[in-house]
């Protein structure tokens, strides 16, 4: 789905996709939380869930999932929470990101420098 499609998207459809829910635990998911499928799609599964399970056979950041599905990040969060609750995907949360307004730690920055210099 292109971005133009998304702009024309009927809010009611977005409501249907998520079952009209918003969730408290969705704040645990960061844009760069990596999602990994723990199994294959099964018959009768919601099509968005099927897409996510296929996409996340390799670790895939939440923001990439949103982009591939053509849905807003907040909608994808809710879909991912469903799959997390039922154990169909697992989440690898950022572990080196600075918390609050703290600076990143030196060890993380060293690894980032090494990685960037290899570009």
């Amino acid at each position: 789905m292109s971005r133009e499609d998304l702009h024309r998207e009927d809010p009611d459809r977005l409501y249907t996709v998520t079952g009209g829910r918003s969730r408290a635990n969705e704040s645990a998911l960061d844009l760069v939380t990596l999602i990994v499928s723990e199994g294959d799609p099964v018959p009768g599964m919601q099509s968005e869930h099927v897409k996510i399970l296929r996409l996340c056979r390799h670790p895939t950041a939440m923001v990439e999932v949103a982009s591939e599905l053509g849905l807003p990040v907040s909608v994808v969060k809710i879909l991912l929470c469903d799959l997390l609750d039922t154990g169909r995907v697992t989440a690898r949360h950022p572990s080196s990101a600075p918390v609050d307004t703290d600076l990143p730690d030196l060890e993380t920055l060293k690894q980032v420098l090494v990685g960037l210099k290899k570009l």
Partner: protein
Amino acid sequence: MDSRSSDQDVRTPLPSTARDGLKIVIVGGFGVGKTTMVGSVSEIRPLSTEETMTQAGVGIDDGASHGKTTTTVAFDFGRISLNEHMVLYLFGAPGQERFWFLWDRLFAGTLGAVVLVDTDRLADSWYSIDRLEHHGTPFIVARNNFGEPKHSLDQVRQALDLAADVPLIDCDARRRDSAKDVLLTLVDHLFALSSARETAS
């Protein structure tokens, strides 16, 4: 170029060992070259997505849409695999006012930011610099410069009222080596800030 649909796109998957996502945000006005810079260093074709935020009006509890305002912000991103575990995501984000309502939700935990400026439209950057300072996000400023510059970097620093300890460099966002230098300058700056703090504590 590849013309297949996105479902069939040749995505470069991350290795199964990838487990730690990191963020750097490139902020700049419309058309300043954010997407170009992301694309110059990203291992994937830059992708885009959007986030919406609905703010409920006070006293509205019937779930109807009246009394709510919806903010939608689109942003681009790319990625760089730093090693087998760490993946750096680069986000190109618009600096306009409504975007900052979503900063905490989208970009909490960002390592740092690059403010990409166009010297013909420096005023576009004032607000972004002010907001980054407000959020306590460390940043550098990069002038996207193709051709002969009309102003010296000192003049740019003055015009932006930039503190002496904030790095300000020239770049060409179209060139991979130049975009890479911008990222290295930011991370060097973060390293210096973080070292200074560790020494002080």
